[in-house]
């Protein structure tokens, strides 16, 4: 489904400050699976997402999505296949527009935008259904501007917007990190429900080891741009994973 081969990426190339993030990095992700990527700050998690999503281009290597080589495609061209929810609730959503306007835009993702009216009566029921599934009461706030929503409500909305056109791949970039524990749990549950409902292949970055184990089929630990652990979530328990994490992380510190 997703195949990354011989990926190389460095920043500040040919200067004293050159940082090699990835050197011949390879990764394969199967269809309809949920993979969690964990690792300390600076290990390359977000850079990997940025390379997959096309925000930054790799120096070398190829990325295949459903056998199609997307490595040379621009970010906006990849957006047709990839949905992404960011840690920052203001990304990927327009805060000065209403919920209805945001959903209507997301509903046109990857399609041609014309001179027809954006807001259409016939789609409203569909949006209400989607919002009802979240059970956050957002279906009653269709005309509320997104800037008046809480962080959790915004992330829930971002999640719907990223998945409503059934992307081939969903990237969750610490999308609950800015939320309080209760809301974070709620959003993770909603995420799981949506992924299962639409059978979307998902990769998520998380600093919460418990969440990573609970909501994924496979755990990948990154360290210095390399995979240091790659196991099915079922084969490892929380304590063991925390110990490995600490051991690996201490090595970096030392």
């Amino acid at each position, binding site marked *: 489904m997703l195949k990354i081969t011989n990926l190389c990426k460095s920043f500040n190339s040919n200067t004293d400050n050159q940082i090699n993030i990835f050197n011949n990095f390879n990764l394969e992700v199967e269809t309809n699976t949920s993979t969690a990527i964990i690792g300390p700050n600076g290990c390359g998690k977000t850079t990997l997402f940025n390379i997959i999503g096309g925000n930054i281009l790799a120096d070398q290597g190829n990325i295949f999505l459903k056998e199609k080589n997307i490595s040379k495609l621009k970010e906006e061209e990849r957006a047709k296949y990839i949905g992404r929810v960011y840690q920052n609730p203001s990304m990927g959503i*327009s805060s000065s527009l209403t919920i209805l*306007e945001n959903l209507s*835009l997301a509903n046109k993702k990857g399609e041609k*935008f014309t001179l027809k009216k954006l807001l259409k009566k016939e789609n409203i029921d569909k949006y209400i259904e989607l919002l009802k599934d979240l059970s956050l009461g957002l279906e009653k706030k269709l005309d509320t501007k997104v800037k008046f929503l809480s962080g959790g409500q915004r992330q829930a909305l971002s999640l719907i917007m990223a998945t409503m056109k059934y992307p081939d791949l969903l990237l969750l970039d610490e999308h609950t990190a800015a939320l309080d524990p209760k809301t974070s749990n709620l959003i993770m549950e909603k995420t799981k429900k949506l992924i299962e409902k639409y059978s979307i292949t998902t990769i998520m970055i998380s600093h919460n080891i418990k969440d990573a184990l609970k909501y994924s089929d496979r755990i990948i630990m990154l360290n210095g741009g390399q995979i240091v652990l790659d196991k099915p979530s079922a084969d490892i328990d929380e304590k063991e994973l925390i110990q490995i994490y600490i051991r690996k992380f201490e090595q970096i510190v030392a």
Partner: protein
Amino acid sequence: MNSLIITSLEQGLIFSILAMGVFITYKILDIADLSVEGTFPFGAFIFAKFMYMGVNPIISTLMAFIFGSLAGLLTSILFTKLKIKPLLSGILTMTILYSINLRTNGKANIPLFSYDSIFDFNSTLVVLIIIVLFVKIILDQFLKTETGYLLIVTGDNESFIKALGKNINMYKTMGMMIANGLVALSGALASQFQGFVDITMGSSIIVVALASIIIGDTINKDSNKIKNTTRAILGAIIYKFIEGIVLDLGLEPTDFKAISAIIVIIFISYNNFLVDILSFNRRKGGVNYVKNN
């Protein structure tokens, strides 16, 4: 007094098209586009050029819009393709247009008194009302379309445009073209109204446009019901009224520029501070509220 009202209204309507144009760059795209200082007289010079070539005033006015949007295209190429900062891109276009404007007819001042104008078809006020309403309705309708919404989001959140699979530069260019087209149209109307074209007619015009937008924003500030185009139109008319009154009080026309800047300062500071100070007693949670409840 009556003539003061009519003249202010007519001038306000002409400048409301300028204000609607600048509203697109300043409020929607969030770009301070200084090229309008060149585009405004550019529209007037293009109009004069076509009139001198014997073209009728309606087509000459439309030509001003088209050439104005080409100036907008130039600025947007400078910042989207050549990656020059938008502010500098605007200044560069403005500088280029200064020379082009002088080249267009070979003169810095062109009389239009002996030529037909778009205002010959009916009274000036009626013609202006028709044009302004036409622009407003088209713009309002456009901003409700799928493409129009993309233009709004372009200034609000670039990452969202990319997530929707769209090229952000295309929408910036589109906005710049519409905006500068409108500014040039306003310039063409201003030249017909005053009966001549002058190279200095664009100087500090951005301040007039911003003043109009800011005054418009002050009207019933928190209401969502007033459309931004309506605000721009009302703002431009109020601005011209204030200017007319100040002139009537005996100040020199050369004092205009300082007055424009002072109007901007007053309205911005009103929006920033005075609204809160003046409404202190009405705010819940203030001392009076605690005492009385």
